[in-house]
């Protein structure tokens, strides 16, 4: 399967997932309408739409504050910006995304923003200190692929949707348990049971959808990076280096976990694994081993036992 076919298939899948979200939203609102009151269902739907619009508008700032990404001055870290420029030219983006710096020892990077023109890429200082130029470029290309494939847009929407569904389902559930019963017009116990089941399951379905969306996109962005640089091995090496690194990001906010190149919360999640058997379904990222294997298979190479000991890019940048 060529990369283009893969991109087309993933775009189709994400369209389906978004429609799934809208449908799920409708079902939750409908259940509230049937079980409680029709007017309440409509109000919930309208409120959800308003909240979603508000969240989309303020998402850029929200992400920046949740990841603690700092804006750079016009002359700071020019070599890094040049790398980003080159990769975004290769991706054919209409504008070069801004670069923001996260002061954190863990090597990681993310992309955010709703449209390519307003998007930005965040890199941690740890990433600059760990990665040589070739691998850093691969990571940047991974993030640029997220922007090019409109992943950042889709994931922002998915995050907002998941939040909305959980919110109204929660409100509906509470009203059904305490006092909502009085306004029910017949229909009986069966409707109530169905409503409870639906309302309880809806948030989990939403969460699952959000995660599966994000995980598929990681494979796609890895492949995109390989295509943009014509160098699948560079992305493989970068992932291996991330795998060997054991620093965890200091402020790992789970609500933006899906944005990073490597799951910032993976160590926390693996501790939870014993409790929740299905936990790998809830991960935001596929295991690094699987991502490396996919790259090796498509690129027709094997990663060397030892990583190349090239100087990290921070030397060229002159970072202390």
């Amino acid at each position, binding site marked *: *399967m*060529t*990369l*283009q076919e*893969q991109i087309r298939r993933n775009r189709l899948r994400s369209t389906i997932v978004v429609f799934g979200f809208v449908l799920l939203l409708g079902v939750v609102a409908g259940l509230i309408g049937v079980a409680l009151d029709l007017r309440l269902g409509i109000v919930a739907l309208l409120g959800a739409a308003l909240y979603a619009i508000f969240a989309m508008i303020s998402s850029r700032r929200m992400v920046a504050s949740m990841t603690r990404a700092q804006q750079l001055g016009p002359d700071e870290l020019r070599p890094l910006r*040049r790398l980003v*420029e*080159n*990769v975004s*030219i*290769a*991706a*054919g983006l209409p504008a070069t995304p801004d670069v923001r710096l996260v002061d954190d020892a863990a090597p990681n990077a993310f992309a955010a923003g709703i449209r390519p023109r307003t998007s930005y890429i965040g890199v941690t200082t740890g990433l600059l200190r760990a990665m040589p130029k070739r691998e850093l470029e691969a990571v940047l290309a991974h993030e640029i692929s997220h922007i090019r494939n409109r992943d950042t847009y889709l994931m922002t929407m998915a995050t907002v949707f998941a939040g909305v569904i959980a919110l109204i389902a929660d409100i509906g559930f509470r009203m059904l348990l305490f006092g909502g019963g009085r306004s029910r017009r017949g229909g009986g116990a069966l409707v109530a049971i169905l409503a409870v089941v639906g309302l309880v399951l809806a948030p989990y379905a939403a969460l699952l959808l959000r995660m599966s969306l994000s995980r*598929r996109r990681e*494979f796609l962005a890895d*492949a995109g990076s*390989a*295509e*943009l640089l*014509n160098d*699948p091995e560079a992305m493989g090496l970068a992932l291996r280096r991330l795998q060997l690194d054991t620093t965890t990001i200091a402020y790992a906010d789970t609500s933006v976990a899906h944005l990073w190149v490597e799951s910032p919360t993976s160590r926390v999640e693996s501790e939870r694994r014993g409790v929740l058997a299905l936990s790998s379904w809830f991960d935001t990222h*596929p295991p690094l081993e*699987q*991502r490396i*294997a*996919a790259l090796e*298979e*498509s*690129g027709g190479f094997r990663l060397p036992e030892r990583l190349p000991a090239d100087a990290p890019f921070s030397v060229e940048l002159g970072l202390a």
Partner: protein
Amino acid sequence: MLWLWILVGLVVLVVLLGVLGYNRLVRLRNEADTGWSNIDVQLQRRADLIPNLVEAVRGYAAHERGVFEEVTNARAALQRAGTPGQAADANDVLTTAIGRLFAVAEAYPELKASENFLRLQDDLTDTEDKISAARRYYNSTVMHYNTAIQSLPWVVVAKALGFRAKEFFSASGDTAPPEVTFTPAT
């Protein structure tokens, strides 16, 4: 009566598919055109840097007239180039000529240490990286566009509608870019 409706339905379907397909071809052609203008911007930027570079070197090595002429001619040829293929060829010639100019500069430590020269060298390297990035994008858009107009059913009508195959930005000696295939592990 039923047959009439089926016929109408089929005609509507064909027209709809035709419109969608045509729009797709237009989009692909526009993407390729944008890709070309990205390359053009970088080639122009490179050409603009060259007179300064020649002047900087001439200040130290005025007698190396042959090299200056070669670079100036290669630059003029690049600006005259009409098609992507010609531009790629001319760009390669220019790269060789610039390489020779830098080889001349090697003999003059003062020149090599001058801030002006270092900045020019840095800018040129940057432009070359950007040309190769823009070229990767342009060539992939051309590949998609050409594939679309050379496959059925569009191959029949593409010429009549004014869709002509585009040339890759690659010098005559280059080989075609390798196709990247991808299979996810899940």
